[in-house]
């Protein structure tokens, strides 16, 4: 799985799943991919969970990421994401909805989809449950597939990494490389 495939220009990508399933790691991989090629990204962070030092270690150019912290207010986060996708020039707008999934009506999802298409940006949403339903060009469900520990057993000293299974729930529009129902594996080093 390549992060560039998750960034659908003019489309919405939804990454949903339980905690510790690898959603944020996929999002940061997308941020790294975008900023590495010199483009500008924005991150709407509902619950202030973004870790700048970890992202920098992962290769994200922090100066190219506009970080918007929304004070645990999902309504503000949605409004901020709406403003960002209407501003042309951002290659990626990431929305992390935090612990709670806000309600988005079909009409709102449709308007968001049109705004993303018009600005030719990519909107990646990290959430617990699906948010924009049919508005998404790509919907991926993540689940954890084990983790590795390093050091002598039974008391290991270091977490080595964890794996994720990424199931494609929906793939439309520009996301032609993904087939619904297929499962991809990813590995993240700690």
């Amino acid at each position, binding site marked *: 799985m390549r992060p560039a495939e998750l960034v659908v220009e003019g489309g919405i990508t939804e990454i949903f799943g339980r905690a510790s399933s690898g959603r944020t790691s996929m999002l940061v991989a997308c941020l790294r991919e975008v900023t590495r090629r010199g483009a500008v990204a924005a991150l709407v962070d509902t619950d202030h969970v973004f870790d700048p030092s970890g992202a920098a*270690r992962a290769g994200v150019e*922090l100066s*190219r990421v506009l*970080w918007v912290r929304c004070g645990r207010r999902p309504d503000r986060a949605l409004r901020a994401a709406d403003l960002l996708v209407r501003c*042309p*020039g951002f290659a990626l707008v990431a929305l992390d909805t935090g612990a709670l999934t806000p309600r988005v009506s079909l009409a709102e999802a449709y308007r968001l989809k049109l705004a993303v298409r018009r600005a030719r940006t990519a909107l990646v949403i990290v959430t617990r449950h699906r948010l924009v339903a049919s508005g998404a060009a790509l919907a991926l469900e993540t689940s954890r597939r084990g983790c590795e520990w390093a050091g002598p057993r039974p008391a*290991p*000293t270091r977490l080595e990494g964890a794996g994720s299974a990424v199931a494609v729930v929906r793939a439309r529009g520009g996301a032609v490389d993904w087939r619904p129902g297929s499962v991809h594996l990813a*590995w993240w*080093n700690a």
Partner: protein
Amino acid sequence: MSHFACAWVPCFAAAAFERAEPALVDRPLVIVRGTPPVARVAEASAAAREHRIAPGMTETEARARCPLLVVRPWSDARVDSARHALLEAALTVSPRVEDGGPGLVHVDVAGLGRLVGDARAIADRLVRQVSAVGLSARVGIAQSRVAARLAAQGGPRLTVVPSGGERALLAAVPLSALELGRELIDTFRGWGVRTLGELAGLPRRSLGDRLGAAGLRAHDLALGLDRDPFRVHVPEPYWEEMLGLEWEIVSLDALAAVIERVLERLTTRLAVVHVSADAVDLELTLASGTMHQRAIALAYPTRDVRLILTLIRLDLETHPPPAAVVGVTLRARPAVARPTPAELWQPPAPAHRDLASLLTRLTALVGAGNLGAAALVDSHRPDAFTLGPFTGAAPSDPAVRADAAGEPDPRMMLRRAEPPLAVSVETGDGRPRWLTSEGTRARVLACAGPWRISGEWWDTRAWARDEWDVLLSDTRLCRLAHDRLANHWHLVGLYD
């Protein structure tokens, strides 16, 4: 051939006050600095000097010498206003004007003969123009600025020094008339030199050997020669447009339409001279008779009407005028906009005008402290960062770019809990066994650690903790920390 006029206003500070209060003319007037009883005379008018009042005297002493004395405290605003008026008057005679200090202006009058007349006509015109702005000046004309100045200061109302007559004019002038510095004047006095004529008679080479560049400059001035460059005074443009209304505006939409018209006029003027606005000051005249003033800082110099109007509108939405508006005034603080072309293969970034507008809207939504580009700080604390302004530019530090240019493996990210969540941890054999947080209890299936970190032990903000990576029975993979100073456990974040 160069030709200079010098307009000099004697007792300038007092003249500035007389200009502001014409009733003070011909009355003994002193301007004082400081607070009583230690207030001292900073300037005395000609009428006050007739009573032997001089600068440096205490106010009490001055009053004792002249019971009818008028005393005014010093005002920078009045003196600056008179200084600008003097310069503007000189600019009506010649475009090349030098500000010589308070009450003194040098005017390059070379080439004005065919336009105005002979030297006396030029001097007469300068006197009239200065008089028109409420000041009374003496004017000297000579081939050098120093000769013109000394002629104005030492002669009658109009003095024209004939060509080649500078040295004769300066011969009897005392050394103190030149601003040479106390040390140099004391040296000359030690040599028995009292006048500029005596100084001009000294051998130049010997003077240079003994006193260096300062001695040569003094010799030149004594001969009536100017070597200093002529610093042309360029008046600052006044970027203001206003519109008075015959009706009252109460809605923001209608007000925005009026502001747009005024703004278009202002930006057109800016475009003519190729400058942009760095900030815009909005002044609304209200029906209640008061003013509603707002300063709109722009993220970058621009003269884009749409952008500035949007920012003004957003500002007025948060700070609406308290009454109906009957007049609009806009002032621009100009700056030269330097376009910076993007790199050839650089992906498109948000346009400056869109970005400025977006940031303003986001700031209104989430607050200024919650928006920007994160930057790491040099600290041992793993969660240390600062939030700076976002420009979308590449990192300026080449080392940062070099780090980013590598190919790191995909990394598992931590979702940090801000602030760290206090949890209850049961331990066994020194390792976490059970975790209770927010009413849920989970068994620790696996854990790794401890990683002992600490910092700022030299300060009052010392911290020290042991960090553990744990896998919980509810599938969460998280990082715990045991604060060794406070003996508390908290959840640093979730791996995700």
